């Protein structure tokens, strides 16, 4: 006696298979989108490499993101800060040429935001740095990245898990983040 899947599926009509194929294709399409067209690693106006800066040259995070331990936002470095070094360093590369063009025009660089929490969440970098977290805990091994990529979901379960594990005082109180 042979066991046939076809036998078991016999009562189903063809339209069922069409819907099944549609659903499988839907999942495949969504997966493809998620993996190959993700917004976790957007293309930035300048091909800035954290690897070169943080790893090869050993610049500490807080040198550029200087507000991280003082204010809610870590602060993206001003164009002037970039130019502080790049007036003389690597001036012949295409990326720095772009940077110099922004500086000459006195225009800000429109970086695309990679880590973004919704407006109804009050997040502050200062608190997290003061609590002794490493930047990498949330942002991943940034110093190895050519192009910055998002490694955390930044969704509420992710936040609450960490608050619970670390037994943060009032860490599960609604008003800690939603006020």
């Amino acid at each position, binding site marked *: 006696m042979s066991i046939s899947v*076809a036998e078991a*599926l*016999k009562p189903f009509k*063809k339209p069922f*298979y*069409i*819907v099944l*194929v*549609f*659903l*499988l*294709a*839907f*999942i*495949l*399409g*969504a*997966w*493809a*989108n*998620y993996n190959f*067209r993700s*917004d976790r690693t*957007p293309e930035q106006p300048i091909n800035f490499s954290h690897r070169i800066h943080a790893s090869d040259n050993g610049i500490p995070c807080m040198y550029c993101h200087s*507000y991280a331990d*003082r*204010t*809610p*936002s870590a*602060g*993206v*470095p*001003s*164009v*002037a*800060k970039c130019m502080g070094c790049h007036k003389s360093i690597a001036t012949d590369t295409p990326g720095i040429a772009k940077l110099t063009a*922004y*500086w000459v025009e*006195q*225009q*800000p*660089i*429109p*970086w*695309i*935001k990679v880590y*973004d929490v919704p407006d109804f969440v009050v997040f*502050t970098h200062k608190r997290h740095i003061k609590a002794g977290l490493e930047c990498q805990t949330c942002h991943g091994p940034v110093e190895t990245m050519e192009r910055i990529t998002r490694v955390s979901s930044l969704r509420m379960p992710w936040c609450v898990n960490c608050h619970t594990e670390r037994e943060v005082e009032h860490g599960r109180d609604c008003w800690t983040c939603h006020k």
Partner: protein
Amino acid sequence: MSKVNRRDFLKFIGAGGAGSIAGFLYGESTKKTVEYLVPQVVPPEDYSPGIATWYNTVCNQCSAGCGIMVRTREGRAKKIEGNPAHPINEGRLCPRGQAGLNNLYNPDRVRTPLKRTGERGSGEFEAVSWDQALGEVTGILYALKDQQNSERVRLLTGPTTGHLNQLYATFMAAYGSPHYQQYVFDDLAALREASKRVFGDGAIQYFDLENADYVLSFGADYLANWLSPVHYSLAYGNLRQGGPKRGTCVQIEPRMSLSGASADQWFPARPGTEILVALAIANAIVENHYNGSDRAAWRTALRNYRPKDVAAATGLAEIQLIGLAKRMASAENPVAISGGPAITGDNGVATSLAVLALNYLAGSFGRGVTLKNAPEFGTGERPLASFADMLVLRDAMSGGDVDALLISETNPVYTMPQSSRFADALAQTPTIIALSSFIDDTSAMADFILPTDSYLEAWGDDVPEFGTRASIASIQQPVVERLYDTKSSGHIMLELARRIGGELTVALPNANMEEYIRNAWRQSYKDDNNFDQFWRDLLEAGVSGRRVSRDDLNPIPASASAALRREIEASAAVDSTEHAFYLQPYLTTYGDGSAANLPWIQELPDPLTSVVYNSWVELNPQTAEELGIREGDVLALRTEHGSLEAPAFVYPGIRPDVVAMPIGQGHKHYGRYADNRGANPLDLLGTDTDEASGALVWAAVGVEVTKTGRRVRVVKLDGVTRTLGRQILHPPEGSGHGSESGHG
């Protein structure tokens, strides 16, 4: 599964293709819109991103002069709160003060100097540079001065105190023109005139509601728009709950205002007869309670106002008048105040005097009613123009006596009735130069509009006239960089002075307003050595001065009572004209209409009717029933001077013979939020004035009411204004009030 034939195969291909595309698009749809992380080009030195900086400055939304704290982040103003250290408002703020941000960020602000291209009043302008605009204005002013025609130039401003007032006066004096005036529609001219006659000084007294236990208000809506609303709201709170004994408030007015709704008793006297009520109460106090040495003289002065003689005319019962007198006389700290409709009729000054007499007889002089100390900051008298003065200006303009009119932050085309034909006179003036943040009904007539800063972008100061006993001054400092290519009014005058040259440069040598204000304060600051420290402290605190106790005040001169009695004897009692319907335009959140372009104010429900966004006509349910009017029926109001249409709102807190309408809507030019919205009740008025003060008569005016037959829906928050037995309001036990009444 049966065999897959060609047709099925194609179906599977189709389903697979459609599914994968749908899946892919689903993936796309879950993505957030791209947000940017835009750095500064050069890092800021005075703030850190994400950290708020608060600046203390002063509110300019009305003349009260409340201290405000503005929260700024990344160089942008985000929120305005009251300054807790400011003696006027002690940290509180009214809706108009909060809506100051709408003034700063208003999309209708004038962003560059404008020169008229179209017809006068069409509102068509072209943008020009500051250099060109100031150059052309200077050319006109210089030529007039050169031809000895200085006095043919006039300056008309809105409410201005402090050193800007001094600057305007200095400019006009050095230019050689005596014509600098301020026109403030809702200024309490009757109180000033009464004060001048009794105390010899046009400064309005301080009415101490805070420490009173009995307040008798004749039409003064002190919680919403009388002198200093935030200050008096605080005082009201203290009166009610600040001490061991709860104070009592009584309101006498034909239409229930916010203060009327908050009072313990509300008496709707017939419009125009508030003076009789005051004098009858005074009479009863003299007859039954007063025992001063001048009792005989007062009895003679008030002999014609026995409660039983005047009760019928006022609409109040004799027993009520006598009862009010008894309560007033037996209170420890009574205060009587007057304002609103009671003092804007043709007997406004006489009513204010009668209310002062009431204070005197109840022993409130020097206690509930005190004189203020002379200001430490000598910024000069405010040249306030009465409505009669404005008619003189109109005649001068239409008679060809004015060659150039500089007009700043005031809108007489809106606040003067159309019957005054002020706009026509403006049209005949050769040059009109408006210093304004907006194209409003008046500046639309201008040849040049020089755009001014919002008060949150400019330097200045303010010496509040009302609201405290003490003399204080507040500093106004920019809390944000200016958003557009604008200058402050003061800066424009300094710039004009520099360009015209001669005496003007000598009188006004400062390059900008910051320098001017700083120098002016340095002169009034006695201790030169520490001025820099003083200035830093001042900018931090926002205010200089302190509250003083009653004992530190100037005493009320003994001659005041005799002067008051003479005035009472001389004043004619009452306007005897009776009308079928009285029109009562009333002040509300829009002030004199200047707040109508603030969207937050437009969307703020009226505190008593809950109506938003539009004009409405209030009338009593009884009247509405007689005339067959329901809420939303469009009514036509007509007087001999004009007519308008507005929907009816049935309001129980109003006399059956009064129709009331809020002032503030009905602008022709005032930006997208105010244009062509509602109607302006002031256009129904004639140009009658209270002869004693020259103020416009806008209370107790007759009006005809007719139905147009059309209906609209009145936009309001309340579904129904009664509780309908739903037990929403729980009356205190034993109070005996039914649950059927009550608003909201």
